[in-house]
Each structure stands twice: as structure tokens, then as C-alpha cells.
């Protein structure tokens, strides 16, 4: 809620920026519409035809009364049969056209929605962690839900309403001008305040709907955060305080919405007023002319009716315009999200890494997060293929940063990270993910079955392979004891599984993924001692001949490594086998001593 998030500013800095934002969202709309252009035009054509059918009805009635009636009185039923028959056919055709329009419009709008949802999802997946850490999950969720909803409201019936309304107005205006150009002139003059009013509404509501989108996002962010942390809310009795904050946000959202609706009400009322004043004016002028015989009475009536009809679709167009403004504000947000560039871009000319050995080099690596201070001033490092290397150091020393650079969650500022001599920035992303897998402390489980969660490591794995992976990390028995075994659905966030079991499941994923380079970032913190021992054993099998980077507070994990790097202040300060470092008596030796002591710790000590 600071300068970090420009979108939370209430108003774009200036007109030019506002225009740029608007034009970017219109480009997005255009690109969404272009794949369905043909269907869109067909929809419009159907609307035209159904309008024609609708207009034809009264004509048949008029024909029936004016011609068929005298003909019937004269004994000729032909015209009546013709009129009634043609009317019937038109009615059915009109109904069919309407039905077809409904279907086609749904097809168009749903195609667009699918397109926009997929694009946003794909894009958010592509964006780097750096982005995700500042944008917040709630905001992405609000883009995908309430903003897409606003777009859906526009598309649901929006296209047809607009086409119908505009057509009706054009038909009517042309009809009136042909009938009596003077009345037509009155109508055209009336259009001027109409345009002024519309312009006013556009500017005001654009601003209002932007506020409304932001307010909605705030409500969503708070909602998601509270529900995600419901345990803590309840345990610390924060219900009242949390509700109060939420009440305020909900009220803000309501106010912006109510204001937008109020604006629309003024717009709607204004249009009705302009229309009715125009009708009265046409009646006055026409009536006076009719009195002096300058205008036929029939033409006067027709002119007044036309003038009335001209303004009738405006209410609907107003509604459409309202939906349009709301959707436009949503599109702006979506376009802004889609315009975010990944700070870790895919390579332009990807190099394949077919048979990775995972020989890793850091060459003159300098790194810092975002525009922040340097975290790793200069790292030169060579991890030969097949070596298991433990990174040790205090929290914040830069261990995780090294791991993140290896997995290419972030890109270096200077120098390069190379795997088998290739810069990670040039490696084909698919190959890179196959070669390098990182298991983090946070063992996130997705809803779905336990088996599916393990299969995340390698989609398409057979049940046997999944089970083998689970056995390797010692979680098979736990899963087998669950109601549906591997098909058991995990609860939200896997709460049914203990933290340790969740870590085991995420380990099983890594086993299944079978990477050339495995990075473990505090991946064993929640395991109990037997679990860790089992994982250690499994790892020894897995890591045989593989490169591994292990970050662990638990020295039990570290002691099994081929080599230990002690990181301090973003620099490697000690490098050697665990035994060598213990002997050397530096930072690692101190940690080791602490660890030994902790193992021997007892309640009475």
C-alpha cells in the first residue's frame, strides 16, 4: 500500500497517462475481438435481420387493415391469407434469428472470456517470483475473478444491445430526415446535448469505475488473506478487528459502486429528458406548421413517433455504456497485468540441454533483489558434476539467493550462472526445469489427490513410479493408510497431512522429477528425526552421480555432503569437506559445536 503499487493510486497522474492506459486496454480489447471477428460480424448481421423482421410486423398489420380488409369485404380473401401467412413466417423467422443471435453471442463472448482467462493465467505463470512477491496473490485473484466478471457482464448481451440500439437509431434518424428534414434537424440539434452528456458521463464514470475496480481488489485481497490465515485470526481473537477493517473496505467498495450507479442514473435521466424535450419540440414546431397547412397531419404524427423512437434505445445503450465503462476499467487492470514484463525472460534463442551432467559455475556473479542493495557482491564458484554441496550460513547470509539463482528464479546483475558451460539465461526453459529442481521449505499441496500431487514432479508418471517415489522418501505407508490411498483428496493446503508429511510429499515430487541438479532449500525443517534419516538414505540413492545443493539448518543433513560452503554476507568464506572445516575451526566449526550441544541437550541441562 505504498508507492510500490502504482495501481492503488486513485487517479492516474495526468491526462496523457490516462489516455495511454485507456488505449492499452482498447488494444487488448481489439486483440481479444480479432480472433472472433467473423462470428462477431455474423452476430451483428443477425441482429440487423431480426430488427428488419421486427419492423416488418406492423407493416403486415397496416397492409392487412388498409388492403386486406377492403379486399375481403369485396370477397377476395387472397390478400388476407398473404398478409397473415407472411406475418406468421416473419414471426417464426424473427424468433429463429433471435434464438440464433443469443447462441452466437454467447459463443463469441465465451470465446473471448476463455481467451482472456487463459492469457492472464499464462502470463502470471510466466512472470517472475519478484513480481509475485510484490503484486500479492489477492490482486491476481481479483484480476481473474471480479475484473473478468466485469468483462463478462459487458459481453453478455452487450454486443447485441449495442448493435440493436445503434441500428434502431440510425434507421429512425434516416427515416425522419427522409420524411421531414426540418424535424430531422431538430433531432440532430438534440443530439448535441446528448453527446455532451455522454462525454460527461464517460469522463466521470471512467474515473469512478477505476476506483471501483481498485476497491473491489482491496476487498478481495483482505478476504483472501483472512481466510488463508483463519487459524491465527481465531486463535488470537482478531475476529472483531478483522471485521472492522473488512467493513470499511466493503463500505468503500459500496460507495464507489453506488456513486457509479448514481452517475449512470443521472445519465439515464438526462437522456430521457433530452428525448422527451425533443419530442415536445418536434410536436410544437410541427404542430404550428401543420396549423398553417405547411405539414400534413400524418407526417406530423409520424415525425413525433419517430422522434420518440429515436431516443428509446438510448436507455439500453446507456446501460451498455455503463457495462462498457465498468469493463473498460477492468480491461485497464488486466492490460496492466498483461503488460508486466517478466524480469526473468525466456531466451530468444534457446539452447538445448539434452543430457545434463550439471556441472555448475558461478562466474563473477553479482546480484541484488530488484533495485535494492547488492546481496551477492561477487561469487566465483565451481560445483563439479556429481558433487553434493551444502550451503551453510546464518539466515540472510545469501544461501537461498544462491539457490534461487541456480534455479533461475532470478537473474544475475553481473556475470553468469552456467550449467554444463551454458548460461542459464540461454537454456531452453523446458530443459532447464527438467534438469534443475528445487524443493523449498514451503511444501505447498494443491487440491486434488495425494498421487496427483506427487505426479506434479513428472506428469504422466505411472502409479507404480509414483508409489516408488513415495517409498523412497518413506511416505508410502502414510499414504497407503489413508482412506483412498493415493487417490485420497488432500484438504485445502493439505491440512490433513502434517507439516512433516507434506514435506515428504514434496520430496517425493523431487524424486519423481529425477533432475540432474537438485536444490534443497530448508526442505527438511519440519521432518522428525526418523523421517529425516529416511530421506537422507533416499537422497543418497537419488543423489548418486548427481549434483546437489543442500541448504539446511540441520547439520545432520549437512554432514553427509561432499563439500560445505559457508556463506557470510554474500561471500563464500569457508570451503571444504565437513571434516576439514570442523578441523579448521571457523564459522562452521562453531555451528558444528552448537549442533553437537543441541543433540545432547536435555531438559535438565
Amino acid at each position: 500500500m505504498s508507492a510500490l503499487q502504482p495501481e492503488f493510486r486513485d487517479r492516474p497522474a495526468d491526462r496523457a497517462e490516462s489516455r495511454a492506459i485507456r488505449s492499452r486496454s482498447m488494444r487488448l480489447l481489439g486483440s481479444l475481438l480479432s480472433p472472433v471477428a467473423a462470428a462477431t460480424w455474423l452476430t451483428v448481421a443477425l441482429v440487423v435481420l431480426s430488427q428488419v423482421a421486427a419492423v416488418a410486423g406492423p407493416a403486415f398489420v397496416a397492409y392487412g387493415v388498409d388492403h386486406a380488409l377492403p379486399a375481403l369485404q369485396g370477397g377476395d380473401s387472397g390478400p388476407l391469407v398473404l398478409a397473415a401467412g407472411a406475418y406468421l413466417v416473419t414471426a417464426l423467422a424473427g424468433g429463429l434469428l433471435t434464438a440464433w443471435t443469443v447462441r452466437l453471442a454467447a459463443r463469441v463472448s465465451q470465446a473471448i472470456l476463455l481467451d482472456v482467462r487463459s492469457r492472464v493465467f499464462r502470463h502470471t505463470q510466466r512472470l517472475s517470483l519478484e513480481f509475485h512477491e510484490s503484486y500479492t496473490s489477492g490482486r491476481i485473484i481479483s484480476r481473474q475473478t471480479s475484473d473478468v466478471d466485469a468483462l463478462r457482464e459487458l459481453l453478455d448481451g452487450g454486443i447485441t444491445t449495442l448493435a440493436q440500439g445503434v441500428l434502431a437509431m440510425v434507421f429512425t434518424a434516416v427515416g425522419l430526415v427522409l420524411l421531414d428534414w426540418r424535424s430531422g434537424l431538430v433531432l440532430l440539434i438534440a443530439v448535441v446535448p446528448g453527446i455532451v452528456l455522454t462525454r460527461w458521463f464517460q469522463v466521470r464514470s471512467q474515473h469512478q469505475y477505476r476506483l471501483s475496480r481498485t476497491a473491489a481488489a482491496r476487498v478481495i485481497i483482505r478476504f483472501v488473506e483472512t481466510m488463508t490465515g483463519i487459524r491465527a485470526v481465531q486463535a488470537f481473537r482478531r475476529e472483531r478487528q478483522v471485521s472492522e477493517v473488512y467493513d470499511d473496505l466493503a463500505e468503500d467498495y459500496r460507495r464507489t459502486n453506488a456513486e457509479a450507479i448514481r452517475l449512470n442514473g443521472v445519465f439515464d435521466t438526462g437522456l430521457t429528458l433530452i428525448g422527451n424535450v425533443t419530442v415536445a419540440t418536434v410536436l410544437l414546431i410541427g404542430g404550428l406548421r401543420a396549423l398553417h397547412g405547411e405539414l400534413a397531419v400524418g407526417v406530423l404524427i409520424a415525425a413525433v413517433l419517430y422522434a420518440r423512437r429515436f431516443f428509446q434505445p438510448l436507455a439500453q445503450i446507456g446501460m451498455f455504456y455503463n457495462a462498457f465503462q465498468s469493463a473498460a476499467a477492468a480491461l485497464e487492470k488486466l492490460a496492466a497485468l498483461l503488460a508486466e514484463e517478466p524480469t526473468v525472460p525466456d531466451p530468444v534463442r534457446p539452447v538445448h540441454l539434452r543430457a545434463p551432467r550439471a556441472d555448475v559455475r558461478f562466474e563473477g556473479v553479482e546480484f541484488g533483489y530488484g533495485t535494492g542493495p547488492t546481496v551477492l557482491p561477487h561469487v566465483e564458484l565451481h560445483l563439479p558434476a556429481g558433487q553434493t554441496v551444502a550451503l551453510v550460513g546464518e539466515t540472510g547470509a545469501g544461501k537461498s539467493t544462491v539457490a534461487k539463482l541456480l534455479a533461475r528464479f532470478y537473474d544475475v546483475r553481473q556475470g553468469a550462472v552456467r550449467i554444463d558451460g551454458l548460461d542459464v539465461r540461454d537454456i531452453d526453459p523446458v530443459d532447464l526445469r527438467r534438469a534443475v529442481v528445487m524443493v523449498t521449505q514451503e511444501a505447498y499441496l494443491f487440491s486434488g489427490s495425494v498421487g496427483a500431487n506427487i505426479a506434479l514432479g513428472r506428469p504422466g508418471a505411472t502409479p507404480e513410479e509414483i508409489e516408488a517415489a513415495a517409498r523412497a522418501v518413506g511416505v508410502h505407508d502414510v499414504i497407503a493408510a489413508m482412506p483412498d490411498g493415493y487417490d485420497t483428496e488432500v484438504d485445502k493446503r493439505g491440512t490433513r497431512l502434517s507439516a512433516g508429511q507434506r514435506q515428504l510429499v514434496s520430496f517425493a515430487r523431487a524424486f519423481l522429477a529425477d533432475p540432474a541438479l537438485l536444490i534443497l532449500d530448508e526442505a527438511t525443517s519440519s521432518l522428525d528425526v526418523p523421517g529425516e534419516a529416511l530421506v537422507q538414505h533416499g537422497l543418497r540413492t537419488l543423489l548418486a552421480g548427481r549434483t546437489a545443493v543442500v541448504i539446511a539448518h540441520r547439520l545432520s543433513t549437512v554432514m553427509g555432503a561432499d563439500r560445505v560452503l559457508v556463506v557470510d554476507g554474500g561471500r563464500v568464506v569457508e570451503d571444504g569437506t565437513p571434516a576439514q572445516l570442523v578441523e579448521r575451526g571457523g564459522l562452521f566449526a562453531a555451528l558444528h559445536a552448537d549442533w553437537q550441544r543441541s543433540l545432547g541437550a536435555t531438559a535438565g541441562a
Partner: protein
Amino acid sequence: MPSATPPPPRPSVVPSEGLATSAGAGQAPRTSGGRGAERDESATRTLLRLVEWARPAVPRIVTGGFTALGASLLALAVPQVLRWIVNGPILTDGSSQAVVAGALLVLALGVLEAFFVWCRRALVATPGTTVERDMRVRLFRHLLDLPVEFHDRWAGGQLLSRAMSDLGAIRRWLVFGLVMLLVSATTAVVGVVLMFVTSWVLALVYVAGAVPMVWLSFRFRQDYKVAARRAREQTGDLATAVEESVHGIRVLKAFGRGDDALDDFVRQADELRETEIDKARTLSRVSFALGAIPEAILAVALAVGVPLTAHGHLSVGALVAFFATAAVVNNPVERLGQLLAMTLDAKASTDRFLQVMDTASTVTDPLEPHALPPAPGAGSTVELRGVRFAHRSTRGSSEVLSGVDLVLEPGTTTALVGLTGSGKTTLLQLVPRLYDVTGGAVTIDGVDVRDLTRHDLRRAVAVAFEDPILFSASVRENVLLGTDDLTGAEADARVEEALEVASAGFVRRLPQGLATVIGEEGLSLSGGQRQRVALARAIATRPRVLVLDDPLSALDVTTEAVVTRRLREVLRGTTSLVVAHRPSTVALADRVAVLEDGRITGVGTHEDLLANHPHYRFVLTALAAHAPGDGVEERGDEDGVDGPPGGPPGARAQRAPRDAADDATGARTGRHDSGRAGVTPGGAR
């Protein structure tokens, strides 16, 4: 307690097969009366329940409806005035004044109509948003009241979509759909009455045509209702998929599974698209009927009416009047289809809203709450007697705790040790009633926790979760989360002390120090950092009972040693239960309880248990894990292995100079980790 709503099925973003989104299956929530009735009540009945929330707005909605009706009737009146003017002043030898007067009358009517339009907006729209907000706030409060067990089962996206898009749909229906539905229906009825006045024969033709329309509309309701409900469910599932893809972004990135998640998401979005197109298909059938039939009726009426007129049974004027009226009536009739669809969509949304609102909380305050006796000087006693707990599940219950007996002696710290998944975390959460026991009882100073209000209980019991949950607020606010009415210097002192104990001095080096916003919307902290803030939060409440779930798991050894030492001092006098996975955490405790197969199988000091309790020895040293690859059962069975935990005997004697110097150096070394907030253990004192 009768069982509550089963959750809607949740498809996953992970590549998984066989997760058909059979929305609607198992959607039989308990209604308030516990009748277990299917949530397939008529639309009218469901929507009538909205009155409960819309009550304050009802008078204005009704008034708004009347003004809308007024506007629509005025619109009908204008042509009558026109006819009068034309037939009167203009066609007869009228004067300019008469024409001007006529035009002014039309103008007046027009202004009145505009006024009515404005009235409807002003009367209905604002209260509509108020109703929406009230429902949103009530839903939120209800969700806060529902137990953790409910939240375990419900996907976040399903709740979110209810709070946002469903309530939005209900509001739009209330202020527009409902009003227009009534206006359209009334206009149609008035029009039909006018037709009967004009010509009963033709009116009968019209009514006869209306019968298939009504029948088709009814059929439509059935089909559309199902599709509408499914569409809402799938929308909620999509929201869930998005939420998970964002919360699990690190996993997806680490395994490069973004594309699979995308495929899965697109598949789900496509299912929603299919459902929406299905809805449109159903709607198109009724659109055809409501569009074609009225016009077809007019064609028939023409075929009937013209001969009637020809034979003198009907005047030409009446014939024309009939068609004029029919043309007016057909408009609202055609609109009925859309409005009906909107109504059914609103019904589906209302159902989803009520589904949550009707779920009664299973963890409730007692009707006559007891008060906790004043804390004894030596500290509170917590007793678990025959405690059983089983996760409620659709597939039979699996008992996690089957008869736990444990007494936490006043002012002492007890470590709870057991294998991962043995139910330690569950047991711990029974004390503050985040879950309720399914058998037995938990008492604090002799009072059953279920006899206390949740507020009183949770004031007495503080928790630090293993997975620390921080909120988007300043560090200070996060630490003070559980302290009531603490302000100024007192609060400052409390924060200082808690951060000190938790070795969370790093927060002072954050960009804005204690005022730095952390959590989702602020700075992201590392796991160890978050854990320390969460620990400080639990300590700051100065509870009677403190429960800590493996509170130091993410700390490095050195920091852990510091925190442990300080915690021991603070915990003196506070009855505490600490879940421990490692000897270093056990060091916090005065004694240890071993949880095994859902029971406490041993209580004693670390040394006692280490010497005499095979399972304990195994859990803390894994010395039986020499048969790797073997399962948990085998591991638990070992008994022959003994010996001290790994590490040279003299280890305890070694004291690293670093540790002695403690963390005082940490602050001065000045290492930092940029935006991640550089951290060294401890902080300046």
C-alpha cells in the same frame, strides 16, 4: 451436532485425472431446522429468503418499483396525448395556443417520466448497494465464526466467488431484475386486460397463445436452473484454481509445471465456457418462444380479426387499437425471457450464499458460559482426559487421537514428541478449541474448554503455529495481535520484550523498523524470520497457557540455542505445551510426553525416556532407521537399539566463542540482505 455441508468438489490445478467436476453432487447442506432438505427449493422460496437481508431496503425497492411502473405507464400515455392533440386542436380549427398547450403537456409528461426514471435509480440503487454490502459483511463475519474444520474443507475460491460475484449478481437482480420483472409482468397484465376491453375474441386468441409460452418458460426454468448452478460452481472452482496457482507459484516454478497448470486451468475454463454456452442454448429456446409466439399470435389475430371486422363484428378502430396494444405488450413479454434468466441466476447465487450462511458453526460458545477462575499463583493446570479426535470425512472417520490422558502441571513446560503425522499438532489445537474433541474433555483449571466462551478461552491460551501466519500490518501490530487494550509505553515494552525473547531483533533493521508492513501486502520475510515474529506474538499475549508447534523449526542452530535459553526463562510460570521434533526443542521442556498411536505412552524427563522408552528413543534419534525403505510400522517396533544420540560425549563441554558472544555482534556486523531484510540472530539490546 449434525453434520454440516460437504464441500463442493474441487478440481485441481495439478495434472490429475478423474477429477470430474460434478458440481451439485453432494450439495445437500443442513438447513437451519436440521431437516436435511435438499437445496432445490423453488426459486421463489429461495429468493424470498433474501428479504431477511434486504428488509431495510424493501420499502424503497417497492416504491422504486412503483415509480418504474409509473414511468412505463407514462410512456404509454404520451401517445394518447398525441392522438388527442392531433384529433383536437390540429385537425379542427384549433389555435396556436392549443398546440403550444399540447406541446407543453407532452413536455410536462416527459419531464415527469424523466423524474420517475431518476426516482427509481435514486430509490433502489443505493439501498441495493447497501444490501449487497450488508450481505458481504455478514458472510464475512459468519466465515470468521465458522471453525477451522470448515475452512479446511472449503476451497478459498469458492468462498471468494460467493463473497464477490454471487453477491454482485444478487444486488443487480434486486435493483434491476426484480423491479423490471414486476414492471414487465404488470404491463403485460394491464395490456391483456385492455385487449379484453377492446375485443374479447382477439384477447382470447392472445391468451391461448400465451399458454405454450408459459409452459415453455416453465420447462426452461428447470433446465436453466441446473446449468446456472453449475456455472456458478465452476466459476468458484476457477477462482480456486487461480488462488492455488498463485499461492503455489514457487512449486510450479521449481518444477516448471506452469504449462501443466495452465492446461488444467484452460480445461476448467473451457468447461465453464461449455456450461455458459449450454445456458445460452437453453435461453435461446425460450427466446425463440418468447420472440416468435407473440408475433405469431398477432398473425393469427390478423387472420381472425380482419374477417370479424369485414363482417361487422368489430370496428376498424377496435382492430387497430388491439394491434397497438399488443405491440406494447409484446415488448415486456419478450423481455421476460432475459429477466427470468437473470432471476434464476440470482437464485443460484442466493443458494450458494445461503449454503454457507446456513452452515451452523460446530465450535460454538456455550449458552451459559463459565468464567475461568483467577489464575493460580503457580500457574494454570491443563488436563486432557480420554481425549479422542477424528477428522470428519465423507469416507468414514479416521481417528487421530484415541484416548489421550495428559496433565500439564502448573507453570511447567511439557514437550510433546511423536512421529510426524502422529497427531501432535491436532492435539495442540484442541486446547484453544480450534478443533473440538470428538470424545473426552480438555479442561483448564478444572473448567471444560467447551464451557468457556471462545473469546475468554483464546485470551487465556496463545498459540504459535509451525507455519507462521502473519498479516498485512506493521511488525508491531503483528506482535500485538493477541493483546487487548494495550497502548503506549506498555505496549512498546511488551513488543520489545517479546521480540527480544524471540531473537527477532532483525525487525529493527527493516526499512521502517517496527512500523514496516509485513505479510501478504508488505515485505516478505524468510521462513525463520516469520517464525520468530509469530513466536513473539504468542509470547506478547502473556497467556495462562502457551502452546507452541515446533516453534523453532526454521531457525539455525545458533539462533535456536539463543531463543531456547530465553524462552525457558519466559516460560517459567506459564503452563506450556511444545511440539518438538528434535532434542534441541525438547530442551525447552521440564518433561516430555510421548504421543504414539493416538495415546500418550510415556511421560518423563528426556533422560528417563531416552533410557527407557524405545519409541521415544527412536523418534528423537532414528537409531532404528537402519533398515531404510521400511515403513513406519517396522520403525516403531524396534526395541533392541539403544545408546546415546549421535555426537561425541564431550560435545556439551565445547562452547563456541560465537555463541558466548551471543547475538550482540550480530547487529554490528552490518550484513544485510537488501529487501529481504538482512538478518543475524538476535538484535541490539
